[in-house]
């Protein structure tokens, strides 16, 4: 009776992985887009009034991340000059073919919603004249008259776009999960749960990022953190964290319980190749610790300073969790050779087109845009007219 063969990788699997750290970054950024939008939608659609302080900022943050979501993909493509083929000659049997359309739709939706939400301020400033006035006149699309009727129409459309935006956000990120979940060649990816897992972790990362940015911005602007707003975001984060982690672990538990032919290698993948990034970063540090910190931090009557501390640390840890999750899915799935007999290795280089340096640079760009937006639009304004 012969046992399992020894380590063996298909020769084309040796050396590197086809999808590098850029493809880790891409779902991370789109996740932040979807998550930040959900916070804005909670306010605009679900009437979570306590989120008013961050509602406009959340929308701007979502747009900023969305604006750079394609950068990692372009850096990854080996023929980036042909990128638009994906829209000009799409092959609709490919899960990837919808990307250009879904992404463009969502970016336009976000841009229009931002222009409408900030329309009062844009029109006010467009009347100033000069170069500054010209910028706002462009943003006002040349129309600087407003009537009570036009305002009412704008608010109606903000609600409509928010309502459309929720399923659009789900499609945008669920689709990213589907890209992986639909690859039957890879048992680490091939699960129908993948789109749902990606969606939940997207919301988790977006809310966590907003908590961090909100606290930092308050410190920067020297204003007090709105305790009820922070508490509401922490509760949302806690709920979606539980959902995301439960789904992630249920998927694994299912594979382990079924104990199919692929589990022997997948369990080794977790235990040997992803031991640190999965067990410690994703499970313990990124899921368990913030679960308890958030449970404490969202209690009513807690000292605001303590809540800020717990919220900030939890937000940071959850962002690490989601980054680790993306790494474990994207890179982890490629470490297992298609021979199912051995493991590849991947250590991202720092330099080069797909290196860590460029990845960090790309990841910093949404923050630069967000800062620029905060200079030209009143992201922190919460007027009564907006609280419909």
């Amino acid at each position, binding site marked *: *009776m*012969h*046992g*399992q*063969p*020894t380590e*063996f990788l*298909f*020769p*084309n*699997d*040796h*050396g590197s992985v*086809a*999808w590098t750290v850029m493809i880790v970054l891409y779902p991370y950024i789109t996740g932040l887009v979807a998550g930040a939008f959900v916070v804005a939608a909670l306010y605009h659609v679900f009437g979570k009034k306590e989120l008013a302080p961050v509602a406009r900022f959340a929308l701007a943050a979502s747009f900023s991340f969305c604006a750079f979501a394609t950068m990692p*993909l372009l850096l*990854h*493509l*080996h*023929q*980036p000059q*042909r*990128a638009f*083929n*994906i829209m000009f*000659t*799409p*092959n609709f*049997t*490919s*899960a*990837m*073919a919808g*990307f250009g359309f879904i992404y463009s739709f969502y970016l336009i939706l976000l841009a229009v919603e931002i222009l409408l939400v900030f329309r009062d301020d844009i029109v006010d400033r467009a009347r100033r004249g000069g170069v500054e006035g010209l910028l706002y006149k462009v943003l006002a699309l040349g129309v600087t008259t407003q009537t009570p009727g036009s305002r009412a129409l704008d608010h109606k459309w903000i609600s409509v776009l928010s309502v459309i935006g929720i399923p659009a956000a789900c499609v945008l990120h669920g689709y990213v999960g589907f*890209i992986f979940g*639909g*690859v*039957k*060649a*890879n048992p680490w990816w091939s699960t129908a749960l993948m789109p749902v897992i990606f969606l939940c972790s997207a919301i988790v990362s977006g809310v966590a990022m907003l908590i961090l940015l909100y606290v930092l911005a308050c410190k920067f602007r020297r204003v007090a953190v709105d305790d009820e707003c922070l508490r509401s975001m922490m509760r949302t984060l806690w709920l979606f964290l539980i959902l995301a982690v439960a789904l992630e672990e249920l998927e694994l538990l299912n594979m382990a319980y079924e104990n199919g032919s692929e589990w022997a290698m997948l369990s080794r993948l977790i235990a040997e190749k992803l031991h640190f990034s999965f067990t410690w970063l994703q499970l313990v540090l990124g899921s368990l610790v913030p679960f308890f910190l958030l449970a404490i931090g969202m209690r009513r009557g807690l000292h605001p300073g303590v809540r800020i501390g717990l919220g900030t640390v939890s937000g940071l840890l959850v962002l690490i969790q989601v980054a680790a999750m993306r790494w474990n899915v994207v890179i982890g799935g*490629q470490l297992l*050779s*298609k*021979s*199912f*007999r051995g493991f590849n290795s991947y250590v991202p280089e720092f330099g080069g087109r797909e290196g860590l340096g460029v990845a960090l640079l790309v990841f910093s760009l949404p923050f630069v845009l967000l800062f620029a937006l905060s200079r030209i639009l009143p992201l922190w304004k919460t007027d009564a007219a907006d609280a419909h």
Partner: protein
Amino acid sequence: MSCKPQGCPSCHPPADMAPDPSRREFVWDAIRTFSFGALTLTALPILVSEADADDDAKAAAPPPDAASPTTGAGKDKGKRTVLFGYLVDTNKCIGCGSCMLACKNENDVPDDQFRTWVERYVYYKDGRVEVDTCTSGNFSFDQKPALDPKVVDKAFFVPKLCNHCVETPCIQVCPVGASFMTQEGVVLIDHDRCIGCAYCVQACPFGTRFINHKTNTADKCTWCYHRVVKGEKPACVEVCPTGTRIFGDINDPDSDISKVLAANRIDVLKSYLGTRPKTRYMGLTAEVV
């Protein structure tokens, strides 16, 4: 507003002016011409192909073997279409790696990437199974320690290449349609269209696709399409000294491959994935993936 009875030349042309024959007749002429043209253009290919079929029937030539020089692969010959297939008889492979060298020379494959390779499976008496691969051709397995018959149960070689599946995951996932299947069943890549996203590399269960370092596009075995359409054999088949690799038209019952397929028990790799490979195997064991 109505015009006066005799005042409007457009409604009531004067008697000396020729009646406007042009408009109505022109329209009818145009309709007739267009209809005739459309019918002719539609019927012509059908008539021509029927004439071809008649000619073929009259010639009563034997169905072409894909590996013979006069194939004209890809064209209908009577009612039969050429459908290429590939068979690997692992019982015959001696692991010389000539196929790999021939492939690299024929297709300019980078040194560290492979359109085809040869795996070696060694079953030891103590239960161990070792798998390794010949990466450079020229009997490179010889560089490894010789197998001692006292400790080895059995050992054999398994050449690998693109499976040119019927239900191809690689064509399915290509977002721009750069991967496609020819009418002869060969899966090819349009290197001028490929964006190099590597989704096909992920989707191929057999590890046969890669992003070519030289072209920066997806790459894989083409069954030497540029040769077989001229009636030649793929380079690997041409050089194989033992007849391990057999290529031909599986729609032709008289081709070598059809005869071997009909007379033997045939297997494919990873059949559970439902990709229906057209590269078939003889002599596989459960350990071969």
